[in-house]
């Protein structure tokens, strides 16, 4: 069972980002959406964890949610791919199940 994990909460306020990274199996995909996109911004305290995670997981971030929050694509950590809603749908279709870390 390959999984797409989604995280929609700020890693500074909630624990869902950490819990997701702890439990996502090697090779699965993590998509950051809504306030979850802040985890992917370079220069912040979460950047190291993203870099570490991207060595064993595929990490994606939802572009429209980044743009909403004033974060240009060039502020995203290396190793993270930006997708749009269509890309979100594709990821959900390509994996066997979606686990939303609410």
């Amino acid at each position, binding site marked *: *069972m390959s*999984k797409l994990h989604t995280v929609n909460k700020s890693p500074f306020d909630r*624990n*869902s980002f950490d*819990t997701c990274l*702890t*439990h*996502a*199996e090697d090779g*699965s995909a993590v998509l950051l959406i809504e306030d979850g996109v802040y985890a992917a911004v370079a220069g912040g305290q979460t950047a190291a964890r993203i870099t570490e995670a991207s060595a064993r997981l595929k990490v994606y971030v939802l572009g429209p949610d980044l743009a909403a929050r004033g974060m240009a694509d060039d502020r995203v950590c290396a190793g993270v791919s930006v997708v749009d809603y269509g890309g979100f749908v594709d990821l959900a279709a390509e994996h*066997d*199940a*979606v*686990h*939303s*870390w*609410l």
Partner: protein
Amino acid sequence: MSDNNEAPPPIPPDDDEDEFGVIKKFCYVNRKAPYGTVYALESLEMVLIAAAFDQDVSVVFMDDGVYQIKSDQAPEAAGMKNFSKTYRALEGYDVEKLYVSKESMEERGLTTDDFLVDVEVLDAAALSALLAEQEVVITS
């Protein structure tokens, strides 16, 4: 759980196929504390209904979700309804796979003696493996 909304589902017959002829691994993941928000209560209502569909149901308590099955809940003085006894009824609905995160339990100073139902305690690696094989993951 309630007496003027939906009736609780009848205990399902013990056959191997549900009405759709498909049995999937359904997993309910509870990560939120009870009473502060309604998620624990309404998630439990969901699990009860799911039981009537004869799927392969697992229920996971992790992070603050482990507080949902703390014994001795008494919310009456705070004006709220005590729904904790319903966890004990899950077994009667053939929902018997209840799992607790070891790390979440320990971080909060809890032991298995604190829980009002029998659960299997899984460490992070075992819990990750369990989650990985689920086909439908319902979170709230």
